[in-house]
């Protein structure tokens, strides 16, 4: 028996408040492998159902002997260049995030784009990705996409006829009138885009239609950074920090790891400094208004209300001055106001320590502020960084200078619309009727325009108000260009002809300008000719740029000289003017569907939100203390009243949430998103007004008494068995290991001492393996819980979506899950730990010994493989899996979102959910099937499945290497074929922005995985079971500094010298450290 020392309070780990309280519901989850399994459909079937089943069986029996359906081979007539049937081809393209470009590498098979990953040549993606990039390809094949233009008249006549010919007939004369009037009475409302193509089109509109108005709005657009840097430098600039060289990072409510156009790059840079090198790692302080992913992994998280953030910055400026970092020259106009404001700063002691820390690391400390924060904070941050950041922060020109962006611009546009002076309204993308500030009543205003045109991928809320809705080409269907945050220009190239003849915004503007015959290609080429400096970019450099995915690099950025400015007074005003009454509200983009534009993407809807693990819903996130004060539990509906309006939505009690703050996740509650996204969650935009875009104070909250079914995956797939709370508390710290840098320096193997094991003996003979032994190493220090790996796995491996009601029963199909634990006894101060868990590919796999039909077996390279055709669905393997990573297909899950058993039914009120239909399930249509990876079997009903370590990629590379070797000259080809380390990557590894996932061959002692398994931080899960997992984890090292309390040197290692551990049979001498079990011993 392992000897276990009770975990200290600090080490206490739990997954949900229910578990912390010891709720019987959680016990039920642990005890029963298949929770809520009620086979209703099999219970007392009536005669009709019986006949259906019998008929289906007979039909199938008759089919078994026949040859399968006749298949045709359709070769090309003329073969496109470089096209080989069945072989994937990569194309560089790019996509926008908050209007800024991110490089993408798209994989296309037989002309079908099937997967998007980051482009390693692009500075803002570095080959890594996030959930949106991974999920974007599914939108291309979404059957709900708008397929042709449709007019309001046709809609009212319930006759959905419409098309580009009809639209052109309508728009031709209209656009001519607009041109004749020099654009008077024309308003163009576009989503925010820094694309050079759109910049070119804007310029042409300004030239040709000087009277027309061009306004840009996105619900997440923010003018704070531009205004703040303008106040600090005289010019709006874009700051970018080099986190790979930062020792101390202070984030002022900036969720820089998970949100915004720089997130992937920042996450990659940040992670570089989280592996102990010379006993040092960086330190991240986070003033967190709400619980963000960045806050969740911060070394020290300070809970701050949004209204206190300005005060926090004032306090920091004052403390920095005390610590000898003078920014007085900047704050000259403040004087005593600053001292007063600083007094109101929360966490005074912590601020003092942070200032001291910064002063000690001058030149290597960085301050970052959330893009949503007001301008004075950004000005202050720019000023402080000038004093502390050395050359870590560089500034890039702001392409949004001089453009009408944001709530103010939108308000004037709305006023113009309401006054009736707009004759022609053209809306390019976006969904302003849904997401504009509530008090503008933009939906009513849009309806007033006599001519309105909305170009959009979906026939959404805004489209339905307009005279014409036009279908827009998907990102992968048309040409375009993007400008990244640092100015890098990339080309957007189509990988497939438009499925529904969609057009791009640039093409619509081109038509407005009366240009004839301009395709998205010629428009892009023309716009980039201007960027390139020459009139026309020559074909060679164009093709080079297409290939690389970078058209023009962004440059290094500059360090502009500072000037004074009046920001300090304004900052103090903000700090002292903050009202503290009632609840505060913070609006936060959702980690799954952002501001609502991804609402119809089932991969993202089913993705567990990283912190709450909610699926298919949003909620008001409130602190446990507030919940007990209101006497409400998870799912209780509350009414939030603020500024004269109110919304009603369910609560989710989030440990670690700031008391007195309610975080609202934006983007849900769509009414015209599509089959998947409609009526899911609750719309919070009615509370969002121009003056409270990001936060508001003085909200009144009351419980309505109603309840809503929230489905969270936080208690699913628990690895602890039913051993009671006390034992669970001993076991969990073995699973998720974390120690402080001081402890690491004192004893790097400290992570191993969490558990001591007697000599492990096996019932089974160790299998012998061939030349390769595939394995994985996951650095918990790098995991930021962003979920990119989960969606990447879903895209790569044809993993289906099951819908809300199935997730409630724990039947989600994700092969890779990210376990989120809370740490600490007090839920208010809970810290967060993430752990990605997939099939551990145990060498002595418990699943294999219980399978009655040998459907799960080992291959000669140590992979635990699942043979779908043998599986008869006993589910014993899943029952016996200690890691709970096996997923069972309860239904034929690839039936697509339109099936009645599918998503919609499972989302709202569960109509009829206890009687799943027995009718044959409608399959995915041909367009939806195009997303499937042809190298991975689509699993059917009744079989088990699980992570394969992306075996299709392993096979491919092995075959390539062997072909090459056999074909090479036998004199020089060497002993045997060689697969270089790093040539085989798994989908999750490719996606991980922090490179936390490593995959490779243990048979190669020089491979990264072999090396990492020798790292003192490396440990295996549940090593005491002696199943010898091929996945090992590297314990996370944190660096909270003096504010984290005294490190417990040898803390968790009590009794080592006394030899008092081990109540088991094994004596001290024969003890083996769990994690140091060298897998390479074979």
């Amino acid at each position, binding site marked *: 028996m392992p000897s276990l020392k009770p975990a200290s309070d600090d080490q206490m780990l739990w997954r949900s408040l229910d578990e912390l309280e010891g709720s019987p519901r959680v016990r039920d989850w642990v005890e029963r492998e298949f929770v809520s399994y009620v086979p209703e459909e099999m219970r007392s079937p009536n005669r009709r159902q019986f006949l259906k089943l019998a008929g289906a069986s007979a039909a199938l029996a008759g089919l*078994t*002997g*026949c*040859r*399968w359906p*006749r*298949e*045709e*081979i*359709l*070769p*090309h*007539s*003329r*073969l496109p260049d470089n096209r*080989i*049937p*069945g*072989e994937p081809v990569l194309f560089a393209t790019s996509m926008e995030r908050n209007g800024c470009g991110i490089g993408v590498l798209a994989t296309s098979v037989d002309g079908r784009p099937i997967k998007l990953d980051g482009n390693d040549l692009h500075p803002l993606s570095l080959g890594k990705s996030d959930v949106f990039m991974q999920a974007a390809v599914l939108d291309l094949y979404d059957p709900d996409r708008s397929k042709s233009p449709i007019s309001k008249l046709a809609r009212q006549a319930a006759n959905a006829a419409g098309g580009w010919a009809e639209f052109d007939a309508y728009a031709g004369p209209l656009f001519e009138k607009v041109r004749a009037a020099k654009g008077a009475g024309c308003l163009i409302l576009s989503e925010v885009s820094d694309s050079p193509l759109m910049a070119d089109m804007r310029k042409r509109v300004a030239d040709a239609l000087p009277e027309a108005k061009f306004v840009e709005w996105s619900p997440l657009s923010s003018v704070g950074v531009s205004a703040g840097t303008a106040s600090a430098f005289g010019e709006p600039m874009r700051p970018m920090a080099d986190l790979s060289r930062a020792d101390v990072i202070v984030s002022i409510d900036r969720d820089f790891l998970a949100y915004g156009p720089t997130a992937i790059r920042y996450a990659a840079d940040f992670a570089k400094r989280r592996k102990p090198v010379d006993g040092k790692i960086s330190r991240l302080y986070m003033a967190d208004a709400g619980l963000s992913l960045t806050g969740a992994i911060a070394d020290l998280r300070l809970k701050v209300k949004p209204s206190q953030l300005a005060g926090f910055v004032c306090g920091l400026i004052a403390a920095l001055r005390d610590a000898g970092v003078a920014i007085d020259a900047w704050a000259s106009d403040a004087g005593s106001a600053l001292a007063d404001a600083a007094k109101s700063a929360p966490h005074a002691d912590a601020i003092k320590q942070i200032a001291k820390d910064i002063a000690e690391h001058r030149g290597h400390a960085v301050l970052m502020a959330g893009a949503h924060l007001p301008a004075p904070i950004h000005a202050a941050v720019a000023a402080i960084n000038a004093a502390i950041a050395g050359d870590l922060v560089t500034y890039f020109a702001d392409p949004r200078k001089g453009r009408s962006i944001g709530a103010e611009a939108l308000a004037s546009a709305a006023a113009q619309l309401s006054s009736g002076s707009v004759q022609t309204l053209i809306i390019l993308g976006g969904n302003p009727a849904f997401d504009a500030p509530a008090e503008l009543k933009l939906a009513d205003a849009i309806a007033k325009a006599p001519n309105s045109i909305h170009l959009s991928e979906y026939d959404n809320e805004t489209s339905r108000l307009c005279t014409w809705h036009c279908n827009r080409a998907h990102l992968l269907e048309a040409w375009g260009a993007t400008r990244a945050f640092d100015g890098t220009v990339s080309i957007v190239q189509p990988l497939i002809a438009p499925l529904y003849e969609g057009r791009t915004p640039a093409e619509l503007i081109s038509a407005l300008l009366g240009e004839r015959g301009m395709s998205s290609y010629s428009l892009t080429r023309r716009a980039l000719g201007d960027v390139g400096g020459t009139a026309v970019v020559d074909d060679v450099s164009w093709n080079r740029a297409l290939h690389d995915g970078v058209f023009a690099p962004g440059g290094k950025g500059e360090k502009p000289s500072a000037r004074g400015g009046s920001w300090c007074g304004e900052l103090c005003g903000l700090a002292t003017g903050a009202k503290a009454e009632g609840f505060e509200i913070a609006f936060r983009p959702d980690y799954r569907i952002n501001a609502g534009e991804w609402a119809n993407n089932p991969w993202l809807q089913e993705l567990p939100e990283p912190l709450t693990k909610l699926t298919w819903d949003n909620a008001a996130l409130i602190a446990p203390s507030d919940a007990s004060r209101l006497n409400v539990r998870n799912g209780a509906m509350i009414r939030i009243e603020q500024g004269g309006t109110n919304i009603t939505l369910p609560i989710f009690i989030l440990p670690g949430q700031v008391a007195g703050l309610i975080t609202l996740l934006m983007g849900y509650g769509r009414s015209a998103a599509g089959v998947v996204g409609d009526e899911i969650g609750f719309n919070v935009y009615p509370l969002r007004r121009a003056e409270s875009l990001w936060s508001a104070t003085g909200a009144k909250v009351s419980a309505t008494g109603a309840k809503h079914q929230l489905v969270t995956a936080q208690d699913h797939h628990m690895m602890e068995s039913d051993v009671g709370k006390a034992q669970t508390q001993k076991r969990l710290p073995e699973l998720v290991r974390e120690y402080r840098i001081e402890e690491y320096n004192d004893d790097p193997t400290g992570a191993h001492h969490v558990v001591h094991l007697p000599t492990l003996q096996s019932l089974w003979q160790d299998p012998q393996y*061939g030349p390769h032994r595939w394995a994985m190493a996951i650095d918990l220090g790098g995991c930021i819980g962003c979920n990119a790996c989960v969606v990447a796995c879903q895209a790569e491996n044809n993993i289906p979506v099951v819908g809300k009601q199935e997730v409630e029963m724990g039947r989600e199909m994700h092969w890779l899950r990210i376990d989120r634990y809370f740490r600490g006894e007090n839920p208010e101060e809970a810290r967060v730990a993430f752990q990605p868990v997939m099939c551990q590919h145990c060498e002595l796999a418990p699943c294999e010994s219980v399978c009655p039909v040998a459907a799960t*077996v080992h*291959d*000669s*390279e140590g*992979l635990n*493989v699942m*043979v*779908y*055709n043998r599986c008869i669905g006993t589910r014993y393997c899943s029952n016996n899996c200690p890691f709970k990573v096996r997923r069972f297909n309860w239904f034929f899950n690839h039936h697509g979102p339109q099936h009645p058993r599918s998503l919609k039914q499972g989302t709202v009120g569960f109509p009829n959910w206890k009687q799943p239909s027995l009718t044959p399930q409608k399959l995915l249509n041909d367009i939806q099937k195009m997303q499937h990876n042809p*190298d*991975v*079997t*689509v699993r059917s009903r009744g079989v088990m499945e699980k992570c*394969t370590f992306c*075996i*299709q990629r392993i*096979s491919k590379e092995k*075959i390539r290497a*062997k*072909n090459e070797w*056999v*074909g090479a000259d*036998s004199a020089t080809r060497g002993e*045997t*074929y060689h697969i270089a380390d790093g040539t085989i990557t798994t989908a999750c590894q490719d996606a991980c922005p922090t490179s936390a996932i490593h995959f490779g061959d243990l048979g190669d002692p020089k491979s990264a995985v072999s090396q990492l398994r020798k790292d003192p931080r490396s440990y295996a899960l549940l090593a005491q079971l002696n199943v010898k997992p091929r996945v090992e984890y590297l314990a996370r090292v944190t660096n909270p500094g003096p504010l984290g309390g005294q490190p417990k040197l040898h803390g968790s290692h009590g009794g080592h010298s006394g030899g008092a551990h081990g109540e088991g049979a094994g004596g001290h001498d024969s003890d083996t450290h769990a994690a140091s079990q060298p897998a390479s011993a074979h």
Partner: protein
Amino acid sequence: MSLRTKERTITRFHFPRWVDSLKPLLGGGAVFGGLYAVVVLTFGFAPTATDVGYMPRQPIPYSHALHAGELGMDCRYCHTTVEHTAHAWVPPTQTCLGCHTNIHPNKSTDTANPDPKDKLNNLLVAATSGNPVPWVRIHDLPDYSYFNHSAHVTRGIGCASCHGRVDRMEEVWQQERLSMSWCLKCHRNPEEHLRPLDKITDMEWRLPRDEQLALGAKLREENKINPSTDCSTCHR
């Protein structure tokens, strides 16, 4: 008892007495029927019965016997990707036209107005319209098995080993069972089929069994051919 209707009387039907004498035969009948079902299912639905010899009619009466046999064209002239990728593609129409722009059995080279009786009619129609020729797949593995041509032909398995003497087939048919046991037979004993790498597409090449085994063993040793019988080799 009888039922009377307006038209006629229906009396209940009684089996005659002698039927009872057949009762003892019922058991025998059941046994025989069971055996019969097993035999029919085993042999009738076996790949040898259902798949081998499958010869669907192709849209163009293309003769492998003429091209690969009589004219001696190498397989790779058309199936160019066979050494490099999983699929040994069926060539695009333009490959056919490479020769058949000039070579035309019926001497009519008017592609705009092809003669409907012409064997090349469908080819010319496809070439003019740009639509693919709808060839019918003969060797059709289930979708859950992933066969890779390049992994076999680059290591010494000849085309004829799986496809038979295509050079003698007017219309191609399926020669082998393509069942899993058939695959495994060779994966377990590749010596029986390995041939020198320059004889891969040679349809005539054949050695006496003992010579084949000796050469196979030598080639296996030389090129380290150790085909795996793991499930994961073909199933993903």
